């Protein structure tokens, strides 16, 4: 405990260590996979001197996936951190609140009507999918907001309504899944449980703008997050327009979650566990919590994807399941401790 307390006074050190670990994990990921690639081969290939085969493995198959894992991990973690701050609830996360389900439903609908098949996803769709996911996520957030509104929003009501919306959206997703033929059904199931199989650079381009634009915006808003975390009354007393700021921050969180769901499906628990861990490491000052959560989220998803790719190789386990297996016990631990 004392160690953690001293760490909190050195958030830069924590972030430095996380960054270092991220680089190590990145290098390990580069070298692990079904196709054998030694460290020197990987470095030579990165430097542009690799064989055609090594180039293919690294630049076409491995790197895009890793970059997606980094971006999605960071995005979901920051989204969760924001949600937890504005709802003052450690259990809040875009998955639990139904925001991921809203995004997922929009993507399923888009694919269902635009393609009638999940197997043929064109280039345009890759860029359109985050937009649709965002619309679905915003719809979910709007519904939560409307139903939870009673002369303002109380954080507890927001979470409870969110759980209800989540159930409703998941039910609608199931209705559409049942209407699919068996192959699409299987693919939709894998996608919904979170998978970045076959991610290529188009997907990276599809999500990159969202992540690199929205995370800094969240960072700029760190003061609002900090005071909101103290409670509405104090925040109002400190001159924060609580409702307006909450709405903007919710929108940011929703947009991040939506973009992540669009490329990686519904990866649950990451947005819940990572911000929590980040607060433990560096405290709830969001100017440090947010970057720490982003680094930690990227690290966790990168490692989880490595496990999902290699544990049952050459078959894959959806990365969402791997994250759940790691993070769910932590969630249960949190629940038990909060009693």
């Amino acid at each position, binding site marked *: 405990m004392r160690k953690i307390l001293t760490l909190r006074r050195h958030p830069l050190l924590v972030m430095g260590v996380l960054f270092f670990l991220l680089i190590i994990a990145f290098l390990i990921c580069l070298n692990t996979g079904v*196709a*054998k690639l030694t460290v020197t081969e990987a470095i030579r290939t990165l430097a542009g001197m690799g064989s055609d085969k090594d180039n*293919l*493995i690294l630049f076409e198959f*491995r790197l895009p996936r890793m970059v997606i894992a980094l971006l999605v991990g960071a995005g979901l973690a920051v989204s969760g951190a924001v949600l937890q701050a504005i709802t003052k609830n450690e259990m809040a996360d875009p998955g639990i609140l139904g925001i991921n389900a809203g995004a997922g439903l929009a993507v399923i609908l888009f694919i269902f009507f635009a393609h009638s098949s999940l*197997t043929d996803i064109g280039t345009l769709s890759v860029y359109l999918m985050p937009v649709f996911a965002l619309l679905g996520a915003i719809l979910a957030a709007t519904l939560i907001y409307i139903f939870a509104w009673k002369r303002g929003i109380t954080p507890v009501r927001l979470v409870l309504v969110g759980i209800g919306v989540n159930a409703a959206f998941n039910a609608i997703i199931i209705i559409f899944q*049942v209407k699919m033929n068996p192959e699409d059904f299987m693919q939709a199931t894998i996608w919904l449980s979170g998978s970045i199989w076959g991610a*290529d650079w188009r997907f990276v381009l599809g999500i990159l703008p969202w992540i690199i634009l929205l995370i800094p915006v969240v960072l700029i808003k760190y003061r609002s997050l900090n005071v909101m975390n103290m409670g509405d009354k104090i925040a109002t007393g400190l001159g924060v327009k609580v409702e307006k700021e909450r709405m903007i921050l919710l929108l940011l969180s929703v947009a991040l979650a939506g973009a992540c769901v669009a490329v990686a499906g519904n990866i649950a628990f990451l947005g819940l566990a990572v911000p929590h861990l980040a607060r433990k490491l560096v405290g709830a000052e969001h100017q440090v919590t947010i970057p720490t959560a982003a680094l930690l989220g990227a690290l966790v998803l990168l490692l989880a994807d490595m496990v999902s790719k290699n544990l049952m*190789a050459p078959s894959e386990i959806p990365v969402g399941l791997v994250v759940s297996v790691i993070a769910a016990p932590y969630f249960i631990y949190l629940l038990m401790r909060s009693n």
Partner: protein
Amino acid sequence: MKKSLFVFCALLLMSFLVACGNQKSPSENAQGDSQTEGNGGMRTVTDDLGKVKVPSHPKRIVSMYYVGHLLTLGIKPVGTLSSELDNPFIKDKVKGIEDIGSTPSLEKVVDLDPDLIIASDKESYDKLKKIAPTVLIEYGKHNVVDEMKMLGKILGKEKQSDQWLADFNAKGQKAKDDLKGVVGPNDTVSIIEIWSNKIYVYGNKWGRGGYNLYNVLGFKPPQLVKENVIDNKPYMEVSLETLPKVAGDYIFLSVYSADGGDKRADEIKKSDIWKSLPAVKKGHVYNINLDQFFYFDPISLEKQLEIQEKLLLGK
């Protein structure tokens, strides 16, 4: 570098040998040669997407499906999907074929260093074509004879595919003769499959032995199946209420027990709708094992034909 030089020399030697072989029997490869373009041993063939260049004599083929087809053509692929390796009818012939995963692991495929890839869906095709020349033959789009003809042309094995077709036709004719009078000329036959929350009826372009029943043995499908499924869709989902419309006078029944379909099958069998089906009343319901009837390649079809014949003859 050394490796590619070796491969080049090997290819050169091979094409020389093949050229010599052709001189001796010019009729043997006539059709294949007419398409040869002569540049580096590549030739142009037709797949589901149109014209595509493939090696004239591929040595290392990775095929998502169609392992039974390839084995029949005398080709052993170097890699295939896990499910293909589970096919009970080719179990003894797949030794040495590597598993590329339940969906193709791109890295595994790269590692196998293929010179030709046979993809079965567009999404995989788009990724696999980065690795080596790739053809697309969509799974469930063609019937088995068309698939064999396509593969024969793509791989330059028309002779083998024609040979198989002749053999298969002969076996089919024999089965037809054996079954003469067993199924009436106006009787209908259907293939039903029960899942935990769905009922499917199958046509002649997918597994469950439909090609044998409708194309080889010439049985009639019920009207609704004929209109919607045969030569059209691989299968169709039906409700319990519409089951009488797709249930023929003879029913081949499979149950997908992996998702709890066996419990659902028990429920359905107790229902009045099921009990009032003509096939049920006359005892013309035959249970088929999904593990055996999942596949629809030449080898499996022949074995399935034997099973179907035995079932109908009550052996």
